[in-house]
């Protein structure tokens, strides 16, 4: 069902936890849908120097959060904004069709934390103009 990469990130998730006095915190999803992702960013000079997450969700939700933190750690804010759910899926060697939305959630969580950072620092970040972290992206696609 899941690739070895997914299982690795699920069983040994990287960067689990919280950051005190984080520069940006994002939370997406809701428990009703069965998944909540919370992302903490420490940002220094426009560079993400530390990132932590907590996730309530399925194996793929945990794995996507984990790999997303790895993918943005050490990157600039602008680079992190380029993270797409597709890139997350590729980095995990694929996800089952009905689990793609978990990767969307990971992208949203990162963006939502960056938005928080931007607001706190009164910055305008290109790519976040239309971003609405409360939008429901939990679509379980049906297989036919």
């Amino acid at each position: 069902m899941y690739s070895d990469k997914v299982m690795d990130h699920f069983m040994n998730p990287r960067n689990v936890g919280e950051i005190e006095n984080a520069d940006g915190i994002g939370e997406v999803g809701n428990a009703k849908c069965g998944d909540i992702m919370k992302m903490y960013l420490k940002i220094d000079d426009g560079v993400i120097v530390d990132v932590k997450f907590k996730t309530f969700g399925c194996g793929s939700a945990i794995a996507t959060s984990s790999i997303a933190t790895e993918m943005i750690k050490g990157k600039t804010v602008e680079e992190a904004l380029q993270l797409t759910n597709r890139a997350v899926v590729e980095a995990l060697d694929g996800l089952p069709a009905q689990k793609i939305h978990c990767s969307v959630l990971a992208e949203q969580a990162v963006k939502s934390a960056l938005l928080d950072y931007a607001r706190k620092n009164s910055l305008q970040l290109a790519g976040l103009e239309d971003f609405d972290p409360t939008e429901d992206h939990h679509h379980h696609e049906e297989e036919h």
Partner: protein
Amino acid sequence: MKKRVYLDYSATTPMKQEVLDEMLPYFTEKFGNPSSIHSFGREAKQAIDLSREQLAKSIGAKADEIFFTGGGSEADNWAIKGIAYANRDKGNHIITTKIEHHAVLHTCEYLEKNGFEVTYLEVDAHGRINIDDLKSAIKDQTILITIMFANNEIGTIQPIKEIGQIAKEKKVIFHVDAVQAFGNIKINVNDLNIDLMSLSAHKVYGPKGIGALYIRKGVKIHSLIHGGAQERRRRAGTENLPGIVGFGKAAALADENLEAHIQHVKVLRDKLIKGIMEKVGYVRLNGHPEHRLPGNANFAFEFIEGESLLLSLDMLGIAGSSGSACTSGSLDPSHVLMALGLSHEIAHGSLRLTIGDFTTEEDIDYVLQELPKVVDRLRQMSPLYEKVKGGQK
């Protein structure tokens, strides 16, 4: 090899060696078509007759009231559609519950699209229907009551005897999905006033792909599968000979061993429940405390999600199941857990562990040792648990 602990007996069971031994000759040697009049056909026919008797005996029915099907789902579909269409002139109303298996629910929904009206009875927090609700749901147009004997997820057993009594008084046909109950509860279709009953072999250490529908003599029903004259013209198709032989044997074994089986699984199940309740916080037992299948344990662990729990257990060789939406690929968690009134979050964190004849005390000890650690690890990752620890809850 890695340790493997199978605790998903309600999903399916391994076949017993005695059942396989019984079936083996019918694949390559005694392979005749039971409809054929030559010796190959006759020996096949005899084997089927014997199985039919074994099955009938195990539920207190007559052999000619047993009709073999391709499984429990076919039996449910046949019973419900077959009765609905055969009694269309009498009425169009069907009564069932909110916690039936999908084979019943989706069949009822299909009938709703085709001119039938269906009442889905609510259940209480433990998953039992209220008898008064049933009574008041019955009306002149009611042609069928279809209620499961015991639920596959939470194990809750319905008051079948009372329901049967009411159905009889009101002259409404009563179908029971006993796929989970069979082999776990003594069933006598006459004592319970059951008119039709669905069974499936793979839940009782028999083969997959074979089931049966008990149809009380005199009950008018349409066929679901038309064609040849098999099963006394009611269910067409060359008989699944080894499957039927295996089902007969499995039913006979289940009947013989019923008491010992119940005792064995109940002791282990109770140990499991007690252990988990002691070792893990924020956990509850779903389903009825007493009126439940002897081998069923269904827990709701707060703050975590079922699929990640299952996957973690699977890495440890422990096989269970969950009513989480993430497992099924559908948007909502199990309709059964929702019908109990559980919140989405709680329903998401459900874990069903079902115990069977091959489960050992060591298996349970292993689970009691590993499961609390897994729950803890996942909770450490959960943003919901954070709040509890932080005293926000």
